[in-house]
């Protein structure tokens, strides 16, 4: 019956509970698998052991220095990639001629793995943070660019005509028409790029030896310290989850008008 149906319980509180529940299931699995002997616990230690190690790590100054270095490298690279990807994406996406001209080159460069670039970057910068930065920017830039290109192509023709008929300048059109349309795509691009950037930052630290969490993971790995390896990996995962939370909050603010958000507000 339409009117007397129970009201949906407060949406976001329930979402948070469900999300934590989801994580608990994974933690439970990670605890059970080694304990039940399904996997060898010297290769995949039980979750409790990982967390115990993590707690130990939290007390170490070196851990916080590493975390800071990783976050700094990640944020810088991501910011550069976002800025470049958005600007180039909007410019290339809105100018048909540029789109045709660059398409093939973009498709050629995109699949070149950042890992294949590692030796080149090492040649230029050794294990300085710049090495990681270049890899991070290179990898996450494409994520943004492609998302922005698709977003720009999604402008409703009637909206575009409206802007044209009122003779909006190019800049105004970009600001008031193209950008809002592309925004949902950009948000997805941001979420994709944020994790790719994190992955590359860690990988660069791991392989090239740039200071940061990845380097500690590398040391732990080559010493056979499985628990510490996983404890650090958990930290990386937590960064990922946090980034997503931030992205979602941002989305709720900036995309209030979008179907995806307003549908849920009802």
């Amino acid at each position, binding site marked *: 019956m339409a009117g007397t149906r129970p009201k949906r319980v407060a949406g976001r509180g329930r979402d948070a509970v469900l999300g934590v529940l989801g994580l608990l299931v994974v933690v439970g699995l990670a605890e059970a698998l080694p304990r039940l002997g399904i996997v060898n616990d010297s*290769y995949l230690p039980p979750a409790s052991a990982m967390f115990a190690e993590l707690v130990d790590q939290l007390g170490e100054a070196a851990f916080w220095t590493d975390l800071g270095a990783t976050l700094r490298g990640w944020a810088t690279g991501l910011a550069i990639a976002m800025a470049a990807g958005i600007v180039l994406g909007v410019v290339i996406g809105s100018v048909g001629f540029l789109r045709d001209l660059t398409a093939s080159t973009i498709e050629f460069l995109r699949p070149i793995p950042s890992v294949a670039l590692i*030796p080149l970057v*090492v*040649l*230029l910068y050794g294990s300085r943070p710049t090495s990681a930065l270049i890899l991070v920017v290179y990898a996450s830039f494409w994520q943004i660019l492609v998302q922005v290109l698709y977003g720009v192509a999604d402008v409703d023709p009637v909206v575009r005509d409206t802007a044209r008929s009122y003779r909006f300048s190019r800049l105004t059109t970009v600001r008031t028409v193209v950008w809002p349309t592309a925004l949902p795509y950009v948000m997805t691009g941001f979420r994709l790029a944020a994790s790719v950037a994190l992955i590359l930052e860690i990988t660069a630290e791991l*392989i090239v030896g740039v200071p940061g969490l990845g380097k500690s993971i590398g*040391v732990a*790995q*080559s*010493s056979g310290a499985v628990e510490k390896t996983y404890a650090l990996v958990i930290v990386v995962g937590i960064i990922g989850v946090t980034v997503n939370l931030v992205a979602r909050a941002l989305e709720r603010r900036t995309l209030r008008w979008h179907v995806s958000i307003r549908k849920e507000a009802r």
Partner: protein
Amino acid sequence: GGGESTDEGADGATEITVGVIPIVDVAPIYLGVEKGFFKEEGLDVSLELAQGGAAIIPAVASGQYQFGFSNTTSLLLAQTQDVPVKVVTAGVNATEDPAADMAGVLVKAGSDITSPKDLEGKKVAVNTLKNINTTTTNELVRQDGGDPTKIEYVELAFPEIGPAIEKGDVDAGQVVEPFLTIGTQAGMTDLGSNFVAADPGLAVAEYFTSTSYAESDADTVEAFTAAMNESLDYAQQHPDEVKEILPTYTDIDEKVLAELNMPQWTSEIDAESIQKLADLSETDGLFAKDPDVDALLP
């Protein structure tokens, strides 16, 4: 790349960067830094960790690092490809006892592989294909009367080799410390040291610099060599101090540390051993052209 010039530290010491790998083998340089051997020579050393020689050699060749640590085969490979590198001092050597070396070939407990020649036709995990580990493992099998060309090598990182053997994905795996001890403690069998098989006291790795740096900063190279040699000898004579320094740059478990097989450290570059390894590598067809061992060594 640049790197011709050398930075002067605040106290007049020359700042140098050395690329190393977080393993037992480089304990002497950590020890030497701690003991002040490098400072005595007017060197201010910073140590950069990387995952392997593949990342260190280009960085040294291009001047990003002044010195680096790499295994002998990689250096020979680089030399045959005209990568401008030059060895300055010994790095680490194998022991002379095949049963107590830093390297070994592990098989599962109760495996029907009981001696190296049984590896024929089997799947063996190594850390890098077509490098020192495959060459020496081949020699181990060859000496035991097996045909190494029938081995199927698979590349896996050291930490993964143990689990892969246990799971049965590979029949055996060539590992170095601490994974050798971790493996034997988990009940696996060591078929013997591939390094020792190639040559007792094999020259496994060296410290090196770029040819241009060797020319332009001969003084620094000399100072580094002197300090390094002192460190190597000191480490060889003070195994207890080595065990104390290890936890400062690795995460090796105490339980493992206690039983770790130590390598040999010597200040002598064993040119013969290097030549022997070069010959073995050529047998395996690793090189595009003959390596010039004399040109590589100081």
